[in-house]
C-alpha cells in the first residue's frame, strides 16, 4: 500500500496516531516499529533509547525516546504491556530505522495485556489507509514533498 508516496506493507497493523506499525507474533507478542511516515516526519534519527526490558508500559506512555536532528520525541506505545525485547542493533546503528523501518529497524517487542480487546483498533494493511491519510492531513503533511522526505529514510 502506498499513501502519498510512502510505503505501508499490507501484512502489518497500524497505529496511525503514533506513526507506528505492529506485527502480531506467533507467541502473542507484538513487534513494533516506526512507519515510513514517522521516518519522514523525524528525518534522520540519531538515537533510539528504549526503556528497559521488563518495563511495564501503559497505553500512550513512552516506551523510549527518539532523537533526531533538532529535537527529541517520545515513542508512545499504542497498547499497554510489558517490554519483552528491544532491538539492540539500534543502539549502535539507529539509522537502521530510517534505512529499513519495516525490517531491521524494528524498535521493540511487547507483550500486550489486553490485545484481544484492542486488536480491532489497529487496522490491518489496506484497511489503515484512510486513517493514515487522515493523520497526514491533520499534520499538514505535504504530499508534494513526500518523496523528498522519504528519500531521507530510503
Amino acid at each position: 500500500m502506498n499513501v502519498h508516496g510512502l510505503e505501508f506493507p499490507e501484512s502489518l497493523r497500524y497505529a496511525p496516531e503514533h506513526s507506528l506499525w505492529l506485527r502480531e507474533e506467533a507467541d502473542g507478542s507484538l513487534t513494533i516499529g516506526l512507519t515510513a511516515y514517522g521516518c519522514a516526519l523525524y528525518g534522520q534519527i540519531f538515537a533510539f533509547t528504549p526503556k528497559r526490558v521488563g518495563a511495564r508500559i501503559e497505553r500512550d506512555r513512552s516506551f523510549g525516546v527518539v532523537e533526531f536532528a533538532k529535537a527529541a520525541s517520545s515513542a508512545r506505545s499504542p497498547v499497554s504491556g510489558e517490554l519483552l525485547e528491544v532491538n539492540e542493533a539500534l543502539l549502535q546503528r539507529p539509522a537502521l530505522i530510517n534505512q529499513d523501518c519495516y525490517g531491521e529497524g524494528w524498535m521493540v517487542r511487547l507483550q500486550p495485556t489486553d490485545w484481544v480487546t484492542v486488536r480491532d483498533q489497529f487496522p490491518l494493511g489496506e484497511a489503515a489507509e484512510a486513517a493514515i491519510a487522515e493523520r497526514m492531513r491533520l499534520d499538514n503533511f505535504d504530499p508534494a514533498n513526500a518523496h523528498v522526505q522519504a528519500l531521507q529514510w530510503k
Partner: protein
Amino acid sequence: MEHNGSQRVLVLVASGPSTPARCAAPFHIATLLACMDAEVTLYLTGEGTQLARREVAESLRAVEGGEPLLHFIRNAKQAGARLLICRQPGVQLDPATLIAELDEISSGGELAQMILEYERVLTL
C-alpha cells in the same frame, strides 16, 4: 504541582552566559527525561536566571553555528518540562524582557521544598 506517580526530576540550571557550551545540555536532558515520562522541572538559579532573558535566549549558542538556546528551551517545554526562575532578593525582573516559555517566578523556599520532595535533583 500535583504528582501523578511519575518520577519527578528537578534540574537546577546554574550555568549562564559565561559558559555558553554548558547552557543547552540542561534543556536537552530535560527534554529526554520528559520523553521518558518523568515530570521535569527546570529551575533557573544564579547565573542561569540570565537564560530567561529573551535577548540572551535568542542569541546564546552552545555551539558555534548551532541553534540558539531558545530552541532547546522550547523543545523541553514541548516535551512537557516546567520552567521556573528563582526570584532573587533585590533584583527586579521585568516580565517584558523575559521569554514567554517561563511558567513561574519561584522562591528559594519553593526550591528547597522541591529538593526535599523530588526523586532526583541534577545541577547543570
